[in-house]
């Protein structure tokens, strides 16, 4: 056991950052597999052509000549479409490389450990707080959590009054208790069954 204090804030930050962002592992494996397949095929074709055997699809020399003659032998429209598709694929890979890839997770401020909570956990906990305050059934309250916002939608049955301010206060109190690193703005909205056309009894 090392006698170092491994719970320093820098390390906790690092763990938090890694846990809330995508590692691009799945995409990397997919891309590597496709490239590997191409490399194996090329190696096989090279071997076959060097040993004078028939090619699987086409020999390397013909591959080179065909790609040279590509603009002359292809319909311009098809070439433009195919080129655009390849360029878009490249753009997607570039985007995956550059964009942060933030996951739907939130960091809880904690001096000892890195604590990361799924947004779904926060949403269901906030929904529970809201429905306890408004004394509603679980199906009547839904909650969604984004990166900066937490939105609660309350759908009470007809004729039942719900104190939105009290629900908001209860949810805010609940969320404040989580000690999230990035505070969430709480929004509470009422969705009465009679409010929208033909939704009576829905």
């Amino acid at each position, binding site marked *: 056991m090392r006698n170092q204090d491994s719970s320093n804030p820098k390390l906790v930050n690092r763990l938090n950052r890694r846990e809330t962002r995508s590692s691009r592992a799945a995409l990397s494996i997919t891309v590597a597999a496709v*490239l590997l397949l191409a490399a194996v095929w090329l190696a096989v074709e090279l071997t076959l052509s060097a040993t004078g055997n028939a090619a699987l699809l086409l020999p390397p020399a013909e591959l080179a000549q065909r790609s040279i003659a590509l603009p002359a032998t292809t319909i311009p429209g098809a070439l433009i479409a195919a080129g655009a598709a390849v360029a878009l694929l490249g753009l997607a890979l570039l985007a995956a490389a550059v964009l942060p890839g933030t996951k739907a997770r939130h960091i809880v401020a904690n001096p000892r450990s890195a604590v990361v909570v799924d947004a779904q956990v926060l949403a269901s906990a906030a929904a529970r707080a809201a429905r306890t305050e408004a004394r509603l059934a679980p199906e009547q309250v839904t909650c969604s959590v984004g990166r900066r916002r937490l939105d609660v939608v309350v759908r009470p049955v007809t004729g039942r009054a719900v104190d939105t301010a009290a629900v908001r206060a209860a949810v805010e109190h609940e969320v404040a208790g989580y000690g999230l690193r990035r505070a969430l703005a709480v929004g509470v909205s009422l969705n009465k069954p009679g409010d929208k056309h033909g939704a009576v009894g829905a």
Partner: protein
Amino acid sequence: MNGTHRGLNRTLLGALGAVLMVVGLAAAWAGASGSFARDWAMAGTRAWAQTQQQLAEARIPGTGTSWWTVAAFAAIIVAGVLLVCWMASQDTGRSNQLASREGAGGNTTVDTAVAAEAIKEALAGNPQVLSAKAQSWKTPGTGGATGLKISVQVRKGASPAEVGAAVDHLVEGLDILLGTRLPVLVRITSGTRSKFARTERVA
């Protein structure tokens, strides 16, 4: 918490993306502009002629193949091996040992299973927790020190504050038990099991 080289992943994906974009745009441009298509064919034909010449000059005596072909083959094989290494480097760094210390009388190691069992046991009675597991990983940025990852799957509506406090308490106990403060990552998750499990109506 794992040892995935994220920078490498992003660099390689970005490089490949740039190459695909250039190739795609060149193809689209060749389709749109006749003069660029002619340039493409001209440059390609010249390059192919040069390649043919190079291949002929470096012919392996007694055969029809060139040393260049052998070199290309070797390069492809090396690239393939590197690709396999790239794939294998994802999600690495899992370890079975939580901590170890060398002493005069011998080595003492603590298996991860010890901590995992203790944490599972401690959280088994918690009505908000569906399941708990602990894994240890060689944590990047610590010089190869092992870190503990505690994943707790909670019931719908469970309070992250209460579950977090319970886990904090466990981590404190573990710190005292091991006599060292390991890097700890706590994940409070909801999964498919949470979706179908009964809501805990404690409030």
